[in-house]
C-alpha cells in the first residue's frame, strides 16, 4: 500500500501547488519554494494514506461480495475478484441462504420505518420548536434542559420498560412500534436543531401576515414552513440516520418476527446463523450500506452544517 500512495502523491505536482495565494514572496526565494513543495507533497501523501486506510474496509466488503466462495477462502486473498460474480447478490435476493426471505423485504421494512419516522419526527418537532423559539412561557428553559438531558438517556436503560409496555400494547412484533419509539427518540435533538432555524426568521413577517388577516395555521403553513425548510432537511437527515441504523430496540421488539425485520436485524440474524456464508453476508451488508453512503454524499453539505449547528454551537 505504501508504493502506490507515494507514487500518486509525487505524480501530480500541479495538484500539490495550492500556493497561488501565498506566492507573493520575492522571486529569489527558490529554496523556500522547494521546501514548500516538499511539505505540500508530504501532506498530500499523508492525506492519500489516510483516505486509503479509511476506504479499505468498505472496499474489502464490496470486493468480497463479488467473489466466488473459492476466492473468498483462498490462502492468498486477492484485492480485486479474479472472477467477479453476482452469485452472492442473487443468493441474498432469492433469500435461500438466510432462509428468512429476500433482502428486498427487509429493505422495504427499513425504508417504511425510516420514512415514517422522518415524517412524524419532523412535523412534531417543528411544532415544538416554534413554541420554544417564538413564545416566552413558563417552564421554557426547563423544557430545553429536559431535552438536553433526555437525549442522553441511552436506549439500553429504557429497553426493559419499553419492551414490557409495548408488549402490553401489542406493538412488539410489528413496524408501528418501531416508528413510535424512533420518532420519540429523534425529537429532542430535532427540536433543539430546528429551534435555531425558527429563531432566525424575522418575527415581523408573521406579524405582518397576522395584520393582513392570515390565521395562525396559514401563517405557519405559508410563511414559517417554507422558510424553515433547510432546518427540516437537517432534522430529517438526523431522523433518517437514527431510524435506519437503530439496533437495540428493533432487536428486542422484533424477536422471531422474521418478516418484520429491518436491515440491521436481518444482517445480524444472517451473521449469527454461522456457516461462514461470508460472500452472501457481505453482499447483504453492501446492499444495506451503499444507499446510506450515497445519501450522505448527496446531503454532505447540510450534514456538516446541521450537525455542527446542532452539536457544537448548540
Amino acid at each position, binding site marked *: 500500500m505504501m508504493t502506490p500512495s507515494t507514487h500518486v502523491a509525487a505524480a501530480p505536482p500541479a495538484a500539490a501547488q495550492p500556493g497561488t495565494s501565498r506566492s507573493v514572496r520575492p522571486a529569489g526565494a527558490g529554496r523556500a519554494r522547494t521546501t514548500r513543495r516538499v511539505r*505540500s507533497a508530504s*501532506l498530500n501523501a499523508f*492525506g492519500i494514506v*489516510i*483516505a*486509503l486506510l*479509511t*476506504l479499505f474496509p468498505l472496499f*474489502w*466488503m464490496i470486493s468480497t461480495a463479488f467473489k466466488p466462495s473459492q476466492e*473468498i477462502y483462498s490462502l492468498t486473498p486477492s484485492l480485486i475478484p479474479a472472477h467477479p460474480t453476482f452469485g452472492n447478490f442473487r443468493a441474498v435476493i432469492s433469500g435461500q441462504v438466510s432462509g428468512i426471505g429476500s433482502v428486498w423485504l427487509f429493505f422495504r421494512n427499513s425504508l417504511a420505518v425510516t420514512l415514517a419516522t422522518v415524517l412524524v419526527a419532523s412535523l*412534531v418537532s417543528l*411544532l*415544538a420548536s416554534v413554541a420554544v423559539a417564538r*413564545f416566552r412561557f413558563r417552564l421554557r428553559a426547563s423544557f*430545553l*434542559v429536559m431535552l*438536553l*438531558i433526555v437525549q*442522553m*438517556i*441511552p436506549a439500553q*436503560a429504557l*429497553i426493559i*420498560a*419499553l419492551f*414490557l*409496555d409495548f408488549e402490553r400494547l401489542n406493538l412488539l412484533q410489528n413496524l408501528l412500534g418501531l416508528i*413510535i*419509539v424512533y420518532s*420519540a*427518540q429523534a*425529537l*429532542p435533538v430535532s427540536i433543539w436543531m430546528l429551534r435555531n432555524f425558527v429563531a432566525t426568521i424575522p418575527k415581523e*413577517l408573521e406579524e*405582518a401576515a397576522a*395584520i*393582513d388577516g392570515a390565521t*395562525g395555521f396559514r401563517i405557519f403553513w*405559508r*410563511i414559517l414552513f*417554507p*422558510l424553515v425548510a433547510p432546518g427540516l432537511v437537517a432534522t430529517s437527515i438526523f431522523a433518517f440516520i437514527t431510524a*435506519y*441504523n437503530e*439496533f*437495540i430496540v428493533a*432487536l428486542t421488539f422484533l424477536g422471531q418476527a422474521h418478516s418484520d425485520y429491518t436491515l440491521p436485524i436481518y*444482517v445480524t440474524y444472517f451473521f449469527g446463523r454461522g456457516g461462514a456464508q461470508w460472500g452472501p453476508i*457481505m453482499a447483504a*451488508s453492501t446492499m*444495506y450500506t451503499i444507499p*446510506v453512503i450515497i*445519501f*450522505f*454524499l448527496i446531503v454532505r453539505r447540510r450534514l456538516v452544517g446541521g*450537525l455542527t449547528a446542532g*452539536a*457544537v454551537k*448548540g
Partner: protein
Amino acid sequence: MAGISGQAHAVLPAGLPDGLPGGGKAGRAFRAGAFIRRHKLAPYLLLTPALVGIALVLLWPLVQVVIFSFQNYGIPQITGVAPTQWVGLANFTSTFKDSEFWLSLRNTVMLAIVVVPATLVAGTIVGLLLNRLGKKMAAFVSTAALMAWATPPISAAVLFYWLVNPDGGVVDWTLSKLPHWLVGSNNWAQYNWTTTGAFQAYVVIAVLVVWQAFPFIAVSVLAGLKTIPTELLEAARVDGASPWRVFWKITYPMLKPIFLVLLLLSVIWDFNIFGQSYIITGFPGNQNEYNLSLYLYDKAFASLPPSYGLGGAIALIFALILLVITVGYVRSSVRQGALA
C-alpha cells in the same frame, strides 16, 4: 408597517387561491383562536405532541425502570403467578457483588479511556490536514471519511468481524506476511481475535469505533478552524512559530469549547456502544467480553430466568454514570449560551 406587510406578501407564493374555509367553520376557528390567544395557550398546544411522545416513550419508561430496580419483577410477577414485592436495595447489592458486573464496567471504562483520546487525536489530525490540503485532495480525503462515517454500525461491525476472521480474514493474512520483527514473532495465521480474550476483542472494537467516529471529530474541528482568522495563524508563522506551537498556543485555546463538547459526546457515545460489541463478541457467547450494555441486556433478556428488577438496577447504575457525564455536557452548553 405598510412596507413590512408588503414583504409578507412577497413571501407568499403569487397566485395562491385565496380560499378561506366556509363561513361557519371560519367562525368557529376564530373563536377557538381567540380562546387560545386570551389564555396564551399557543405554545402549550404546539408543545403537546412532542411532550406526549417524549413523556410516554422516554420519561415514563425511565420511571418504570427506577421502580423495577427496587422490586423482584420478572416473568412470574407479570403472569401473576407470584406477587410483586419491594426488595429494597437487593438488586443493587447483588449487582455490586457480581464479579461479572465489575468486569463489564472495567471493559467499558477501558474502552472509553483508549478510544476517546484516540478518536479525538485522529479526528483533530485529519481536521488540521483537511484545512491545509488543496481543494481536490481535501475533497478526496473528506469523502473517504464521510463513507466510514455513513456506514451503519451493524454493517461496520459485521464487516470488521470478517476482516479479522481466522478463516480467510485479510488482517491475519497481512500480519502473517509482514516481517516478524514488526508484528512480533507470533504466528498470526488463523489468529482468533474475537474469542481468544476480552483484550483481543476490544482491540477490534476500538479500531472499529475510531474508524467510524473520527470523521465527525474531523469535520467539527475543521468547522472550528474556519472560524479562526487566518491573519492570526499567518502572523504566528511569520514570527517563526513551529506548527506544534501554533496549535497549542492559538488553535487549541480558540477551539477549546468545541473540544470540550466533542470530548463529552465521545465519552457518552463510547459508554453507549451496544451493536458493535454485540456483533464482535458474538453475544451471548463470551461473558468476560461484556461491556455494561451487554451485561444489562444479558441480565434482562438473555439469562434464565430473565430478571427485570436486576436489569432495572443495572440500567439505573448505567444511567447515573451517564447522567454525571451529561451534567458536564449541559453545563458547558449552557455556559456557551445555548438557552438564549
